[in-house]
C-alpha cells in the first residue's frame, strides 16, 4: 500500500517570490510515479507536474519544479515567481504505474499575497 503525507495545511507567499511545498510518501513498490495536482476553489483538479521514480533528474515545467529525494521518500514542489493565479489547494499524489489508482495527501492551501 502507498501512503502520501502533506504535513503543512497552509502556506502563504508574496507575489513574485518562491515557495516550496513539502510531501513525503511511503511505498513498497520499486516502480512508481509521483504527481502534484492543483485544485483552485470550486474548480477542476489540474496536473501541475509528474515525476517517474526511475528518473534521477528532477522534473521541471516552466515555473514549477520538484526536488525528488528517492532515498528520503521526499517529493517537494517549488513554485518560482509566484503569481496570484497560483493560489489554490495543492495535492501530492502517487501511483504504481499504468492504470493504477492514485493515492493523495490531504493537500495544502497556498495563498499568494499581492
Amino acid at each position, binding site marked *: 500500500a502507498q501512503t502520501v503525507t502533506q504535513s503543512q495545511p497552509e502556506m502563504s507567499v508574496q507575489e513574485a517570490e518562491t515557495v516550496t511545498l513539502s510531501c513525503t510518501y511511503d511505498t513498497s513498490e520499486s516502480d512508481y510515479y509521483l504527481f502534484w*495536482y492543483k485544485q483552485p476553489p470550486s474548480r477542476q483538479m489540474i496536473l501541475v507536474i509528474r515525476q517517474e521514480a526511475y528518473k534521477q533528474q528532477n522534473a521541471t515545467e516552466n515555473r514549477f519544479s520538484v526536488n525528488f529525494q528517492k532515498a528520503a521518500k521526499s517529493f517537494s514542489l517549488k513554485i518560482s515567481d509566484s503569481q496570484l493565479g497560483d493560489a489554490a489547494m495543492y*495535492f501530492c499524489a502517487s501511483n504504481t504505474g*499504468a492504470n493504477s489508482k*492514485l493515492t493523495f*495527501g490531504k*493537500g495544502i492551501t497556498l495563498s499568494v499575497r499581492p
Partner: protein
Amino acid sequence: GAGVSQSPRYKVAKRGQDVALRCDPISGHVSLFWYQQALGQGPEFLTYFQNEAQLDKSGLPSDRFFAERPEGSVSTLKIQRTQQEDSAVYLCASSSWEPFAQETQYFGPGTRLLVL
C-alpha cells in the same frame, strides 16, 4: 480536445433518495476512475474501469454504491438510499492507453453531492 466532463455539477438529495452521477471521459481514454473527496480532504479512490470491465471496486464504501460503464465510454456512479455521510464531491478521471501516458489521470470538474 474536450476534457473530462461530469453531470450534474451539483446535486441536492434527501436522505434515502437514489442518485446517479455521470462521467464522460476524454475521447479514446480506456481507463476511468471514480474518487470521493470530502470537504478539505484529498480524493479517495472508489473504483476503476478498463473499457467496460470494472477491474477494481475495492474503494466503494458500501453496497449502496454501484458503478457501470456498459459501452466502455460514459460511466455512471449510482448511490442508493443516500445517507448524510455520502455528502462529498465525486470526481471522475480518465487516462490514455498510449505508452508513457498511462500513469497520468485527467480529472473532471466533479459533482458536488449534498444529502439533507
